[in-house]
């Protein structure tokens, strides 16, 4: 998906990547992509604590979500993005919430685009359900979801 954006003619002033601390793989892939396709666009990385590890129980997940939310709250006003594009995992929830909160307080003017995981065929992910009510755009990768949820857009598989 990052490759699609980097290879498209969308003009970007600056790109801020926010990745989970435990996901160095995605970070190096993003860095390589950026180097290759967006050399002239300044960029920056943030590494956030994960809101919820796969398989973590809902209770301990609640505590780590609060911690991740505090961290993410600081990123959004500092960077004041025009668009926040998030792709599903737990990491993106606190970011999306903080963008929404700072929008409400008129601190930021940030459009929120949520891309649901390709793994979700019939039902939204937990992250998706949380972000759904306030996302400006909600992209899904299977047609059944756009039939089921009014605001979901299906434009084919995205990855």
């Amino acid at each position: 998906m990052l490759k699609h954006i980097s290879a498209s003619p969308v003009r970007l002033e600056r790109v801020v990547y926010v990745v989970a601390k435990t996901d160095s793989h995605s970070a190096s892939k993003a860095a390589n992509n950026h180097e290759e396709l967006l050399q002239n666009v300044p960029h920056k990385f943030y590494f956030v604590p994960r809101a919820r590890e796969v398989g973590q129980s809902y209770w301990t997940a609640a505590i780590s979500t609060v911690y991740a939310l505090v961290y993410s709250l600081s990123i959004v006003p500092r960077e004041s993005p025009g668009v926040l594009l998030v792709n599903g995992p737990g990491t993106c929830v606190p970011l999306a919430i903080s963008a929404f909160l700072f929008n409400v307080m008129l601190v930021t003017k940030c459009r929120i685009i949520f891309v649901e995981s390709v793994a979700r065929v019939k039902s939204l992910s937990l992250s998706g359900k949380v972000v759904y009510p306030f996302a400006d755009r909600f992209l899904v990768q299977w047609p059944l979801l756009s039939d089921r949820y009014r605001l979901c857009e299906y434009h084919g598989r995205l990855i």
Partner: protein
Amino acid sequence: MRAFVTVGSTQFDELIMALDDERVQKALRDIGVTKLTVQYGRGRYRMATGSGSFLDVEAYDFKRSLHDDMTAADLIISHAGAGTILESLRLEKRLIVVVNESLMDNHQAELAEEMERNNHSYAATVSTLLDVIRRAEFSTRVPLPPPNSEAVPTVLKEELLLRNLGL
């Protein structure tokens, strides 16, 4: 024919145990597999390696990238992770996706089933794996269509425009 079994970064000992079963190895041999490479991931179970009665087996926990083993394989038996499923199908490999039924939130079965319904691969569980290996007709599988690479950039462009117009 080479088969590659991968569980990604998960723990899926039940699948490894199933592959350690002589009946499963014989079924693989019957469809032409002679070499089996197994990636254990975070699992603890160790299967018998070396030259068995039916297959030549090698195994390891992790590699920096599984890409080479996936490319070398003719058949991939994979856990139901979206990344592995998509990569296998992009490589146009024969694919059997084994759903881990012991996971808490088992939406992963949805993707495996959807890929089978669209005739890209086969879906199995540990208990149906043997059966699926026996009845799989890979000649009936169709390649996965490429993704839509325009959608996200288009939406991004629209939203940047709306934002700059103050809407």
